[in-house]
């Protein structure tokens, strides 16, 4: 008898095209992130890139890159991002063999094309043009000085003037042209540093942005960039590991504490896609799941799938049940309109709370997922009982130390199997072929996970070490 809880009707399809009503992630060239709600007549201000009407992006597929034109308009353009480029660059990277490398690769170097090719028009063409420049003279980077303020013949004032005199979308390219012409050492630079220089300038002046689907990873990235403490500094790799170790899937019933502003809940909902239940515990009057307001989960789905309870309601359910005296239809009619609204609100609250309490009391959750700043050793002692057999318990913490203490407790608890403390870090590389190396700097932190499985020890014959043993045995009978 399989007990899968599927709910085919509730399946939320991930959209492929940008539509009104969507929350989207807007990626700016300098890796700045914004979240926008695409509404009819809505617009968004991208700071120095100007303001544009959101209607201009509707109907395009997610992942599309746009350029801000004049008059609040945008046009779709082809993306020119090739990958990770380290902004720090050691000078010990050789360029002597860059030609050989490039020749060996698929990029054809035409050394004679310099004179023959027509003036490059697009930025892509300009980059290509620069690639074709004869760089034999710069066999190594010995002739190069650091790219510093000194060698940049364009002053900030000149750039400001250019910004004012050039129009709209042309500003970026105009500045780049000027920069190329005026950069004292530009011709001395190697292909490699020319490209890098262009890329950096492009990021700075081109009024381009990309619109991405706002999945849980994008939501997390957005928070990490804005205020990492609001997601407890959790990294994407740690979130991914949590979801896998937690065996999160469509149809599950999960007990959750989430102090990541709701990003964790968003990630769970994304994996569940409309099917399953979450009992969300919190320590204040209401849970803080403000991130969900930026997400694309309809309010009905959130209401249907999430039961929230504060810790008092969860741990002392019987005394916290809301007693509610229903009025008869007669009595209701007697009430004034504002009293009636009040009555209905109170009634809904009582129904929700009592339903959540009933759900919580059932226990046997398919996973316990905790991301909290509460002290986990004492917290876990009270939560283990609610987890079903063979089901995972996953605790996230920004710091390793509270998880060490929790693991020591777990090691002495017969209700717990295989407690394991995980750290996962994604180390990004620069991805320029022929110049592969780990990025010189990366984000620190990212947090830790403690994972374990809830088990039922045999009733007798085993030394009773687990604290809640008696309670559990009663529970098992």
């Amino acid at each position, binding site marked *: 008898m*399989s*007990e*899968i809880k599927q709910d085919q009707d509730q399946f939320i399809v*991930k959209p*492929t*095209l940008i539509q009104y009503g969507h929350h989207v992630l807007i990626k700016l060239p300098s890796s700045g992130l914004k979240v926008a709600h695409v509404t009819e007549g809505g617009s968004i201000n991208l700071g120095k890139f100007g303001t544009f009407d959101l209607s201009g992006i509707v109907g*395009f*597929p*997610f*992942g*599309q890159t746009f350029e801000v034109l004049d008059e609040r308009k945008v046009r*779709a353009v*082809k*993306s*020119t*991002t*090739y*990958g*990770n480029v380290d902004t720090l660059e050691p000078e010990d990277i050789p360029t002597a063999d860059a030609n050989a490398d490039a020749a060996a690769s*698929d990029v054809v170097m035409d050394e004679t094309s310099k004179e023959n090719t027509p003036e490059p028009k697009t930025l892509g063409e300009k980059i290509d043009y620069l690639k074709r420049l004869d760089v034999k003279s710069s066999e190594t980077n010995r002739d190069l000085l650091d790219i510093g303020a000194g060698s940049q013949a364009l002053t900030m004032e000149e750039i400001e003037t250019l910004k004012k005199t050039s129009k709209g979308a042309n500003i970026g390219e105009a500045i780049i042209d000027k920069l190329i012409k005026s950069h004292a050492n530009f011709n001395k630079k190697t292909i490699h540093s020319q490209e890098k220089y262009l890329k950096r300038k492009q990021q700075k002046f081109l009024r381009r942005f990309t619109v991405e689907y706002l*999945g849980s*990873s994008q939501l997390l990235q957005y928070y990490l960039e804005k205020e990492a403490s609001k997601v407890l500094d959790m990294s994407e*790799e740690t979130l*991914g*590991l949590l*979801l*896998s*170790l937690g*065996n999160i*899937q*469509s*149809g599950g019933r999960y007990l959750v504490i989430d102090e990541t502003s709701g990003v964790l809940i968003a990630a769970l909902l994304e*994996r569940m*896609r409309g099917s399953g239940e979450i009992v969300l515990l919190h320590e204040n009057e209401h849970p803080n799941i403000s991130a969900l307001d930026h997400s694309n989960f309809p309010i009905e789905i959130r209401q249907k799938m999430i039961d929230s309870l504060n810790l008092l309601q969860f741990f002392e359910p019987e005394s916290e049940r809301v007693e509610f005296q229903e009025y008869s239809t007669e009595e209701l009619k007697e009430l004034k309109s504002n009293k009636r609204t009040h009555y209905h609100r109170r009634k809904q609250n009582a129904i929700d709370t009592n339903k959540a309490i009933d759900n919580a009391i059932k226990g*046997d959750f398919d996973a316990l997922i905790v991301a909290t700043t509460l002290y986990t050793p004492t917290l876990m002692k009270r939560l283990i009982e609610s987890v079903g*057999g*063979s089901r*995972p318990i996953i605790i996230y913490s920004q710091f*390793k130390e509270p*998880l*060490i*203490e929790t693991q*020591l407790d777990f090691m002495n608890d017969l209700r717990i*199997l*295989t407690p394991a403390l*995980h*750290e*996962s*870090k*994604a180390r*990004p*590389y620069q*991805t320029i*072929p*022929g110049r592969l190396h780990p990025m010189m700097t990366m984000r620190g932190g990212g947090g830790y996970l403690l994972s374990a*499985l809830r*088990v*039922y020890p*045999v009733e007798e014959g*085993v030394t009773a070490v687990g604290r809640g043993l008696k309670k559990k045995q009663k529970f098992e009978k």
Partner: protein
Amino acid sequence: MPFIGYKTLIEEGDIVLAFIGRDAIKPIRINSEETLNTRYGVFPHKSMIGKRYGSQITSMKGYGFIHLLQPTPELWTLSLPHRTQIVYTPDSSYITQRLGITNGSRVIEAGTGSASFSHSLARTVHPHGQLFTYEFHESRFLEAKKEFEEHDIDVVINHRDVCKNGFEITNYDGGYLNADSIFLDLPAPWEAIPHLPKVINKNEKVGICCFSPCIEQVDKTVKALIEHGWTSIEMVEIQGRRWEARQSMKRDVDDAILRLKDVKRRKLEGIERKRKFYADNGDNNSKETENDSNDVREKRKLDEKEQTKVEKTEFNPFGRGMRVLEGDPKYNWLKVSKNEAELKSHTSYLTFAFKEAVANL
């Protein structure tokens, strides 16, 4: 479906992971006629039926214990014999999250390999998505195919050299796989990349991850991805570490000094007692006792040993010379953590890239 979904009670025909120890997780299919033999004793399957998943059970002789777990893709991965071609959970979980794979995704995986990542992907795309997996080795293909059937996992598996013959499946929906996520765990992913346009969804952004142990492979892969119009190429390495909580004795310097004082005190006490004994009895080398018989001298030696002995100290703040169990409440302990003596330091490089949808306007 024991691998996907949740189940409470163990029934005939179910797959159970018998947890014998951290490095001994044995998958069994419940057959009431059979028994499981482990180093902790014999466990008849009959004794498992009706038990809840997660139960600890006792061996027939009553002295050994094992736990009965419901299989999950992650536990399944742990139960496999350690081989290098397994995509372990720190990598597989990141790839899944980074590519945005979720319920409803249409995923291509090549090659199938140990099929452990396939299990995880199938769980995540279930029930609205689809996993397509390809394996070149016939023996592995057959093994994986059988495994998917036994595990009741809905996967389209193909015996195929995707580098030569691409990904199209003519008997599947006219060959339109419309994949939105690609995972290539192949020696030469750059040979497979040119075949992808025929099977990916052109109407949405598609993600790819190539999994390669050597950096030279990454270089070739990146070049191939650029050539075939993939953008946002980023490569990462996942460095997963495991930590273990321990307790380390908190040995205070003041106690160390007190101990030295105690040692010194007892040493002085011994010297004092010896001095007293010699004053009373003379020592064996002194002139006074020079003429004593050997018997007398032996006797005096024994008496000396007896009467000058300083009893062992009660003061032993760090349990020197004793077997102290970690965490013994008689001592002070500091909670510490350490990682394995041998770290898994590398699996593969993960090269990600994306292909934009074609705008239809």
